[in-house]
């Protein structure tokens, strides 16, 4: 199944307000530590990198290891500085990138 992602970003905020961002991406996060029924190791295939950009500038990032549960959920905070676009990128072991974005109005 193609990875699908969702984000929760407030639609509006006051300048300087610290806002909570919630994200979740659908992914099995295959750890590389499991074996199939025949005893063969199942190759690792996880999302290893998450990046959040605010109008193009990286404001938060995270590196993930196989210990992150399937369908990774992550919440964090950023400061609302100006209106514009907040983008989210999840990169897996194969280099595939899942993207999501949200608009925010800052007054």
């Amino acid at each position, binding site marked *: 199944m193609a990875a699908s992602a969702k984000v929760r970003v407030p639609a509006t905020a006051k300048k300087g307000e*610290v*806002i909570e961002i919630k994200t979740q991406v659908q992914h099995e996060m295959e*750890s590389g*530590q499991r*074996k199939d029924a025949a005893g063969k190791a199942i190759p690792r295939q996880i999302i290893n990198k998450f990046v959040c950009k*605010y109008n193009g*500038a*990286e*404001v*938060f*990032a*995270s*590196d*993930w*290891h*196989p*210990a*992150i*549960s*399937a369908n*990774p*959920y*992550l*919440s*964090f*905070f*950023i*400061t609302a*500085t100006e209106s514009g676009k907040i983008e989210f990128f999840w990169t897996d072991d194969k280099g595939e990138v899942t993207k999501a974005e949200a608009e925010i109005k800052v007054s």
Partner: protein
Amino acid sequence: MTDLARDMDRRTLIKVGGAGALALAGLAALGARPARAAAADSEAAVKKLVGNAPIKDGKITLKLPQIAENGNTVPFSVVVDSPMTEKDYVKAIHVFADGNPSPGVASFTLTPRSGKAEISMRMRLAQTQDIRAIAVMSDGQVFMAKQEIKVTIGGCGG
């Protein structure tokens, strides 16, 4: 039992899968302490990320359940006390699970624009163990919080 022998046992048990997990749960029920096989690995992983800076207590809070309902999905949060200004902010948060096959859980790179140093995620834990959260501040200081979490293995939910 020496630490090494216990370590060997643990690995053998894990290799034999389901039956092993049951036996392991049986051992736990008899009061055997969980092996800390990865403690040395964990030290190395910490050094790699934070260097040789002295690690202090305080400033960082790790929120974890005391008992994980299931080791496959354990919610956790980390909060670091910081003004998050250009001059004084949290540069990074690292989370380690000392008793997992590999100790690294996640690292977070923050900026003054993060506003607040607080994150929440969900992790996998292989057994009862210590979780460590480490914060690296913009002035190079390093703070750590540690908590033990019990993980049940071999039950209906485990």
